[in-house]
C-alpha cells in the first residue's frame, strides 16, 4: 500500500532544505501524515548531504582535459579504422590477383619454370607434372599460408604491444 500523495510535499521538502517554515505549513504538517514522512525523510537525507558539503571538490578542469584527451584518442582510432581494414584486405587482394594471372597465363609460367631448371629431362617432368591448374592450386596454397602467417604474426605482435 502507498499513502496518498499531498500537494504540499514539495513545499515541505523545500522548507526542510532551506530551514524556512511558515506557521501555516507547520500546521499542515501536523495534520498530514504524508508530509510528516516527507519532513522526516528529507531531514535525514539533508543531514547526510550537509556533511558532504564540507569536503573540497576535485578540480573540474582535470576531468575536462582528460575527457578531451580520451575523445581525441577515440577520434584517432576511428580515423585509423579504414587503414586497419585495408591492412587485412590488401594481402587477400594480392593473392586473388596472383591467382587470376596464373589462371590466365599459367602455361607460360610453367614454361619459364621448366627453362630455369637444369637438364632437359627435368624440364619435361616439370611440364608433365605441373600443368597450369595444378600450379595454380599450389601457388594458391602457398600464398594463402603466407597470408595466414602474416595476419597471425601481426595479431600476435599487436597483442604484445
Amino acid at each position, binding site marked *: 500500500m502507498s499513502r496518498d500523495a499531498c500537494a504540499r510535499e514539495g513545499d515541505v521538502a523545500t522548507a526542510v532544505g532551506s530551514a524556512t517554515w511558515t506557521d501555516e505549513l507547520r500546521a499542515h504538517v501536523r495534520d498530514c501524515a*504524508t508530509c510528516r514522512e516527507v519532513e522526516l525523510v528529507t531531514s535525514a537525507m539533508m543531514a547526510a548531504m550537509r556533511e558532504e558539503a564540507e569536503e573540497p*571538490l576535485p578540480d573540474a578542469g582535470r576531468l575536462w582535459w582528460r575527457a578531451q584527451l580520451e575523445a581525441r584518442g577515440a577520434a584517432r582510432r576511428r580515423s585509423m579504422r579504414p587503414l586497419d581494414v585495408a591492412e587485412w584486405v590488401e594481402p587477400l587482394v594480392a593473392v586473388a590477383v596472383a591467382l587470376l594471372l596464373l589462371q590466365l597465363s599459367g602455361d607460360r609460367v610453367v614454361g619459364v619454370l621448366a627453362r630455369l631448371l637444369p637438364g632437359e629431362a627435368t624440364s619435361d617432368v616439370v611440364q608433365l607434372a605441373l600443368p597450369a591448374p595444378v600450379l595454380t592450386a599450389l601457388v594458391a596454397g602457398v600464398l594463402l599460408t603466407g597470408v595466414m602467417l602474416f595476419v597471425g604474426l601481426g595479431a600476435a605482435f599487436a597483442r604484445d604491444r
Partner: protein
Amino acid sequence: MSVRAGVAHADEAEFRRFYEETARPLRAWLRRAAGADNVDDLAQETYLRFLRAQVDDLPDDERRAYLYRIAMNLVRDGWRAERRRGPATVLGDVEAPAPPNAETIDVQRAMGRLRLRERTLLWLAYVERASHREIATALDVKEGSVRVMLSRARQKLVGALAQGRRGKP
C-alpha cells in the same frame, strides 16, 4: 531542477558550472546513499562517461538525471565486481558501510535497508528536488510510476528509521 539552462559540454566553462552544481550532491549520494567507498574514483568516472556520452542535445532537466543514471550503473558494476571477488566484501543492496559521523549513522543504516533504486529515488526527490520526469529518466522507469514508487520508498525509509531508533539502547 537547478541545473543551469543551456549547459553545453563542448565548452569547458559551461562544464565547470555544471560540475560545481552537481558534484557535491552526487558525491554525497555516492557516499551516503549508495554506500560507496571509492567516491572520488566513481565521481570522476561518472563525469568522464557523462562527457563521453555527449548529451548536449538532451533537455537541461535530463542531464542531471543522466548523470545519476551513469553513477547508479557504476555503483552496481562495483558491487558485482565485489561479489565476484568474494563473499566477505558483499555490500550491494543489502547494507551500506558505516558513515564517519555519528549523526548520520541512523540514516545510513536505514538507507542500507532500501534498494539502491529506492535510495536514489528519495535522494533525487528530496535532496535534489528533481521532477518526476527527471527521476523517471534517472531510474529508467515510466514517469507515471514515480509517484507510487516514491511513496513506497518513503514509507520504507520511515519504517527503517523508526526501527533503528527502537533498537537503540
